[in-house]
């Protein structure tokens, strides 16, 4: 590697590590009592910490399940049978970039309140399911691109025809043939969805839900050291989640030549650039 490359990467690494290191230092401060884990103990003893974290994890899991159930069959089907509408699907999935969360939350509530009967308001609009519905939208751009990149790497036409000529049903083909081949793309998509929901603040705070990021903000505005500890914990958890997904992605993929999960993640953003759709 040339020296210029090392210099650039060192500057980059410093930019990312100095703020993290500073926050760790702050989280260990105890005012006049030197350094220690007091801030961490305070956070871990707070029942709100567990409640909000668990709530956010639940939301993240629900969002991941709904998103995958919606998008995996859609991406597969569009590639297999409806290649003509792929540009349309792609355009729609990029829309959440055009309609930022702060705008989406305005529109969602106004739209649903305008026509919903009481029971729908009670059971859906004013429940955490509505939050999940919004989070599915937020994750669409990333999930679509990750899945799209994954499915391009697999010859789904041949696989599907082979499966069907052997008598497999559509559902069986999807679950037993296509999904195992999309494993790494699906994992990348799940990871991104999970990370997005765990960190989402805008919609949750406007909709008045005590999610983990909203809890962090409450602490952050009042108590400096515990907030620093909380920041370290939350960033740590995010990276642990990423590592778990990486390991899962590696397992059973030894034969592949490439680090596929990495490739699928890169593909998530790159799909937009490699996609001749609409050209």
């Amino acid at each position, binding site marked *: 590697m040339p020296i210029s490359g090392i210099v650039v990467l060192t500057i980059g690494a410093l930019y990312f590590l100095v703020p993290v290191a500073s926050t760790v230092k702050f989280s260990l401060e105890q005012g006049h009592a030197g350094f220690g884990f007091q801030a961490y103990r305070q956070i871990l003893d707070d029942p709100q910490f567990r409640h909000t974290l668990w709530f956010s994890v639940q939301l993240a899991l629900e969002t991941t399940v709904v998103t995958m159930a919606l998008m995996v069959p859609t991406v597969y089907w569009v590639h297999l049978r409806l290649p003509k509408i792929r540009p349309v699907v792609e355009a729609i999935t990029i829309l959440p970039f055009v309609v930022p969360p702060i705008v989406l939350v305005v529109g969602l509530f106004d739209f649903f309140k305008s026509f919903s009967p009481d029971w729908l308001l009670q059971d859906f609009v004013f429940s955490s399911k509505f939050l999940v519905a919004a989070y599915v939208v937020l994750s669409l751009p990333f999930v679509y691109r990750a899945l799209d990149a994954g499915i391009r790497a697999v010859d789904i036409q041949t696989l599907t025809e082979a499966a069907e000529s052997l008598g497999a049903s559509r559902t069986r083909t999807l679950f037993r043939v296509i999904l195992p081949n999309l494993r790494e793309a699906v994992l990348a998509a799940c990871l991104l969805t999970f990370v997005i929901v765990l960190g989402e603040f805008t919609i949750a705070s406007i909709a008045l839900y005590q999610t983990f990021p909203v809890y962090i903000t409450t602490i952050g505005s009042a108590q400096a050291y515990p907030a620093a500890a909380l920041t370290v914990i939350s960033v740590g958890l995010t990276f642990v989640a990423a590592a778990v997904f990486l390991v899962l992605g590696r397992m059973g993929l030894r034969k592949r030549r490439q680090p596929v999960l990495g490739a699928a993640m*890169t593909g998530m953003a790159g799909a937009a650039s490699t996609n001749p759709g609409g050209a």
Partner: protein
Amino acid sequence: MGPEGPGAVVLSTIVAERVDTVAAPGPAPRPRRRLPLAWLGALPFFLYASLFLLLPAGDVLIGAFRSEQGDWTGANVRGLFHAEYLHAFENSIRISVYTALVGGLLGALMCYAALHPGSPRFVRTIFTAFSAVASQFGGVPLAFFFISSIGTLGVVTQFLKDWLGIDIYAHGITVFGFWGVFLAYVYFQIPLMLLVLAPAVDGLRPEWREASESLGGDSLTYWRSVGIPVLAPSFLGAMVLLFGNAFAAQATAYALTSGGYNIVPLEITNVLNGNVVSDPHFGQALALGMIVVIAIAVLIYLPLQRRAARWMK
């Protein structure tokens, strides 16, 4: 038009369609097309997108032109041109352009340095996984990164003061204003650029460089005639994406400045939280303004991406 794979249609459909074309010569009444069952497969997606994305977005667009009594009015949109809100749009656009430029350039350099041909595979894996996670950082954790480092008592602030004699706060730099927001945004812009640009950098073939060298070109010639022209569309497209990303961000600026920094997402937040006295429809007018700005950015982005696609694969 998207490419239709050679086996895009199942055999039976091909046969059916051929029979159709043979059976319907000239002006004879065309046999009715088969019910397009294939479309049913995409129905759940279109339903979901309509209910939770398209119609709510349309609601915002229409709501911006409504008064509280339900009449049509242009007052909300006219309100956007008040000095305070023009200033918010100006601030938003400025911070987005600056962070896209700085984050984009740093990200592109890092991307090229890390994905150099011959860089070890584990570097790439860690690099992409890290970028995927870090590009989603935001809100209080990100704000705290910078409060801890360049806040009044921050580690970097103290270091500069004690060791180099530079007091950044004496120079008007504060983490709770432009500089804090700027540095925090660059923190997620860089990894986003890494993610988006990686496929294009990977697409730079070593043969091109060899060809350039064997024809007597030096490094500068290679970059001027090959590297930059090939990367430029992807890079510019990615910059637009970064712009939109910063423009839409709310949580980080909210956390750093407690909602006090005058950018559009925070103005909308203030309207929604009832911190300012105004027609709720004015929030929708602000939202409409955001959509217009980002839509313009995306209109620039799409043709660039199409050009970038030429060099892929």
